[in-house]
């Protein structure tokens, strides 16, 4: 604004110089300085003067002031006319002399000591500083968003809208109040609800309940509450006790409990009989009814599922047996007619007889069970023993009469007896009964041995025949075509044969061909590996020795194993396996030795040459290099390489033979040549190599131009090494190769949006920042000082308009 005005005045000055007559509005500018005068005359004078001055050249001269110039007035100072500037010290001179102005002097001194105030900055500068400060402030505010932005950029998945809309919980009364019953049914329901004043929401007490609650006095309420509390506590104690008791596993405890209950019932009944015979009769009737029910139902018979299973188990399990017995007894008790004790002794007798019979049967069963625990085969014997056991049963009854638990007693009692009986009746056919006396044991051992021998003989015979089967083909094969065998396979075959011969030793068949075979491959192998010959021979010798040892052992074995072939078999097993291992180890050693030896030879050769070089120092560097690389035959290496490349690039034949398909297969069995020929698919001859006629060139034909079109040629931005890129490509993400969970995780889309859901700009509250409490509007309204003067003027103009 100010700049604008300045520019305007400049322009005006220029105009004044040129065409002043046309611009009457210039006057106020020149007259502006003596606005203070309001004298009309003087104004007029001025006007005239200015008009006359228009013609003069020096109209730019300072306008004259009206005050007297050479005098010092009370109010203003002027140095006009004196030709020199007015200096402050001149003015202050009188102060020094006069003592009355001491205060002024002091003030002046103070002013002198202070520095002069600097000029205020230019407005533009100020604004710039303001701007910079404001910018720094706002960029600081923005910087708090950095972590959020970074997190969102790197997030694996962003689900928009970021802030989930909180489902508004409208209180039910609001919903109800806002809703009007439309249909007649709804109307009816509403009527019902309103009639009963059923509260729709909490508290879930009807007005009636509330009223009743109010009606009770405080003490009453307290008492009632205490009562209720007590009742609740008691109930909980009782429940706890019942639970605890229920959890007791002890059968004895339960039995006692039951018995006690029964006793109690009986006592009660007797008491009742005395006190109230009618009630007792009723009780009796009840019992009768129960009996009838029991007779009707098959509850305690042995026809139930449980009973059946127990009956089966009873053979082997004492407890099951007992359980069955108990059940039957209960049945008896339940179905037994309750009678007065005086009625009949016959019945009692009968009953007792029946009991005895039953008990006898039970005894049988018990014994069976016992026998079963020993062995199944004894059953017949047990049956035979039935008769002698009858008296025992009688004993048992007697014992029962004594009042002891017959079953418990019987167990101990009979065990001992049975053992005695069994001792007598021990049969020869069942030697496993080892709980018998020592004298029998000896016999049993002998028998055992004989039996075992028999078994072993049979087994060994079987094995022999098998081994013969096994060995024969091997043998045949070896003899047929020994030259085609490789070293290792040959050795393996040898070792196998050795093992087989261990078993065949009984027949004493030591073929001379075997030794011949052993020598033949050795001779063959001499040719390709001349250097290694002595070592090899040694090892072979060792092998032969080993073989011989085996033979010796085999020869010895039949002698030692006259008593039983089993021993021999065990021996052969024990001896055979470590031998094999040993041999294998030796073979490995052999190879190791070979390699190490060859290397050592090389290493030996180098120092000798070096020594020679040291001796003949006059030979130059080139010669040395030549000697150093004497071993490298570049041309031969190249040719070899080319040959290898050609071989590698040749299409391979496809062998589809399946060993064992249509013929027996197995160790050492090879599919026949005919089969092999039939299933061998010969690869078609490929196109001629490009370097066929170029002996010094290898042209690689690995590159497939058809595939190259699909291959990535340049590594793209985020990757720094091709390995990284390959790794990302090689991990499949499809569901074919990944589990469902992994597939979902791998194919998670980065941004998820839902159609129709408005995504609002991120807010500070969403990411846990505190948003500014004051609104922008209030802040702006609080500092209106920033409106520049010009804007204020503009605003005023606006308002006026």
């Amino acid at each position: 604004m100010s700049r604008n005005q300045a520019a305007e005045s400049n322009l005006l000055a220029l105009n004044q110089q040129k065409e002043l007559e046309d611009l009457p509005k210039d006057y106020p500018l020149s007259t502006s300085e003596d606005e203070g005068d309001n004298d009309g005359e003087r104004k007029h004078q001025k006007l005239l003067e200015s008009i006359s001055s228009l013609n003069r050249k020096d109209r730019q001269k300072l306008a004259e002031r009206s005050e007297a110039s050479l005098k010092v007035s009370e109010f203003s100072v002027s140095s006009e006319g004196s030709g020199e500037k007015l200096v402050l010290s001149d003015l202050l001179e009188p102060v020094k002399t006069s003592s009355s102005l001491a205060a002024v002097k002091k003030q002046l001194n103070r002013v002198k000591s202070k520095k002069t105030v600097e000029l205020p900055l230019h407005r533009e500068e100020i604004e710039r500083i303001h701007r910079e400060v404001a910018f720094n402030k706002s960029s600081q505010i923005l910087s708090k968003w950095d972590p959020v932005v970074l997190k969102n950029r790197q997030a694996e998945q962003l689900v928009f809208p970021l802030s989930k809309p909180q489902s508004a919980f409208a209180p039910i009364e609001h919903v109800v109040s806002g809703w009007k019953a439309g249909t007649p049914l709804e109307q009816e329901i509403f009527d019902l609800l309103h009639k009963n004043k059923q509260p729709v929401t909490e508290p879930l007490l009807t007005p009636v309940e509330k009223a009743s609650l109010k009606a009770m006095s405080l003490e009453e309420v307290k008492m009632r509450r205490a009562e209720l509390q007590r009742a609740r506590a008691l109930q909980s104690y009782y429940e706890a006790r019942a639970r605890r008791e229920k959890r007791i596993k002890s059968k004895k405890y339960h039995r006692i409990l039951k018995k006690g209950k029964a006793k109690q019932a009986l006592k009660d009944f007797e008491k009742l009989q005395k006190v109230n015979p009618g009630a007792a009769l009723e009780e009796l009737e009840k019992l009768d009814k129960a009996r009838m029910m029991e007779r009707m139902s098959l509850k305690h018979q042995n026809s139930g599922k449980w009973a059946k299973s127990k009956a089966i188990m009873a053979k082997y399990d004492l407890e099951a047996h007992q359980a069955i017995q108990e059940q039957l007894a209960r049945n008896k008790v339940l179905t037994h007619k309750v009678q007065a004790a005086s009625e009949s002794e016959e019945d009692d007798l009968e009953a007792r007889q029946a009991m005895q019979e039953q008990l006898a049967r039970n005894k049988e069963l018990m014994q069976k069970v016992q026998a079963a625990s020993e062995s199944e085969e004894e059953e017949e014997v047990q049956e035979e023993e039935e008769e002698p056991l009858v008296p025992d049963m009688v004993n048992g009854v007697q014992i029962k009469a004594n009042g002891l638990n017959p079953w418990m007693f019987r167990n101990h009692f009979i065990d001992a007896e049975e053992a005695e009986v069994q001792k007598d009746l021990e049969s020869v056919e069942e030697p496993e009964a080892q709980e018998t006396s020592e004298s029998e044991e000896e016999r049993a051992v002998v028998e055992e041995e004989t039996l075992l021998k028999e078994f072993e003989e049979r087994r060994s015979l079987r094995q022999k025949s098998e081994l013969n089967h096994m060995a024969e083909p091997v043998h045949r094969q070896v003899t047929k075509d020994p030259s085609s065998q490789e070293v290792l396979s040959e050795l393996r075959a040898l070792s196998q044969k050795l093992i087989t011969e261990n078993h065949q030793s009984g027949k004493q068949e030591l073929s001379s061909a075997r030794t011949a075979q052993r020598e033949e491959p050795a001779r063959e192998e001499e040719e390709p590996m001349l250097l290694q010959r002595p070592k090899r021979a040694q090892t072979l010798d060792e092998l032969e020795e080993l073989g011989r040892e085996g033979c010796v052992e085999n020869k010895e074995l039949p002698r030692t194993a006259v008593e039983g072939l089993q021993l021999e078999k065990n021996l052969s097993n024990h001896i055979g396996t470590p031998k094999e291992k040993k041999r294998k180890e030796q073979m490995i050693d052999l190879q190791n030795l070979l390699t190490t030896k060859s290397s050592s030879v090389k290493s030996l050769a180098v120092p000798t040459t070096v020594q020679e070089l040291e001796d003949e120092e006059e030979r130059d560097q080139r010669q040395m290099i030549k000697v150093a690389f004497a071993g490298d035959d570049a041309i031969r290496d190249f040719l070899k390489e080319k040959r290898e490349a050609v071989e590698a690039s040749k299409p391979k034949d496809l062998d589809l033979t399946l060993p064992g398909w249509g013929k027996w297969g197995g160790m050492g069995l090879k599919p026949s040549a005919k089969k092999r020929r039939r299933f061998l698919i010969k690869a078609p001859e490929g196109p001629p190599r490009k370097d066929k006629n170029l002996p010094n060139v290898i042209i690689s034909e690995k590159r497939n131009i058809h595939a190259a079109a699909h291959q990535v040629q340049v590594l793209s931005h985020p990757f720094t090494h091709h390995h990284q890129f390959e790794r990302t490509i090689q991990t499949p993400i499809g569901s074919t190769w990944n589990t469902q969970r992994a597939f979902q995780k791998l194919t998670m889309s980065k941004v998820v949006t839902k159609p129709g859901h408005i995504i609002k700009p991120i807010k500070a509250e969403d990411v846990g920042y505190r948003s500014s409490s004051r609104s922008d509007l209030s802040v702006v309204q609080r500092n209106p000082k920033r409106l520049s003067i010009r804007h204020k003027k503009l605003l005023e103009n606006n308002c006026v308009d």
Partner: protein
Amino acid sequence: MKVKMLSRNPDHYVRETKLDLQRVPRNYDPTLHPFEVPREYIRALNATKLERVKIWNLTKRKCIRTIQAHEGFVRGICTRFCGTSFFTVGDDKTVKQWKMDGPSCGEEEEPLHTILGKTVYTGIDHHWREAVFATCGQQVDIWDEQRTSPICSMTWGFDSISSVKFNPIETFLLGSCASDRNIVLYDMRQATPLKKVILDMRTNTICWNPMEAFIFTAANEDYNLYTFDMRALDTPVMVHMDHVSAVLDVDYSPTGREFVSASFDKSIRIFPVDKSRSREVYHTKRMQHVICVKWTADSKYIMCGSDEMNIRLWKANASEKLGVLTSRERAATDYNQKLKEKFQHHPHIKRISRHRHLPKSIYSQIQEQRIMKEARRRKELNRIKHSKPGSVQMVSEKKKHVVAVVK
């Protein structure tokens, strides 16, 4: 004799109800599923080809309401944050507020408020949370909705300001672009401009990123868009080049990951924020110079208005299926998307995914631009080559277009 048989437990393969999915036992042994990479590559290839199917859908195409709002052009329009009313500014120096809902029958169409101003307003934008709006013309004015005079007005130099935009996150910040090639940032609270950046050519409009408070994108006359971090204005974060004529409007997707630009070259393009090349270009035969463009709030559609007086609705993602997707469909699309991403560097896939049909004018212009750019680059290289080493420096594309930053 014991006969060995193969037997299977029916529980493992029989469905309980016929609505159950068939249980398919899977073996993930990699040896049983060989050639993972080639198979996935083929799938990726098919997925990229699938993208070419375009289904366009438009909602009801009916004009509900026409308002004679101003005498002369309507220069700017913006809605209130709540969506109940909108503001317009026109050549008749007025700011008017209108109800969003039409007048009930018998009622006359009248603005809620009218403010008479001194100067012509060229643009308007509403605050994102409060009853405040900003207009621009000769200066940037901040208005309270309840008052007829601006509560604050800010200026820096003398120029006509073409557009003003509020920051959606830090809502007291504003950005404006003036016709003297600069972009000015303002702070409403402190009632002062903050900084000014002068570019090569005029910026038509800017748009703030709704997810990243300090990022904004400027649509420039020099065919490019510039994404700036407002704290460091001397170098744009990214220069987006693909248009072949002035860019007239830009709008961010609500997700803040992409933005759409409307250009004078009769096309609209979608750019990822962090890529300098566009992901998609939309054009039709009849669409002329596109004046304005907007991304819908659910980020699924784009709307554009063009010179031939049509508004068009586009899908933001052309190959996306509209409507409800079954979970299997979604899994398949996700998988396809991931495959495309995985194999994006393979030449065939890159070629197919980048291929777009373009009108001849744009196509030839692109070729022309390419030649020009290459020539410029060659010249620059030659200049470096033939001058004293170190005296001429290669200027990066990002720095090239920024003339100055004024504090």
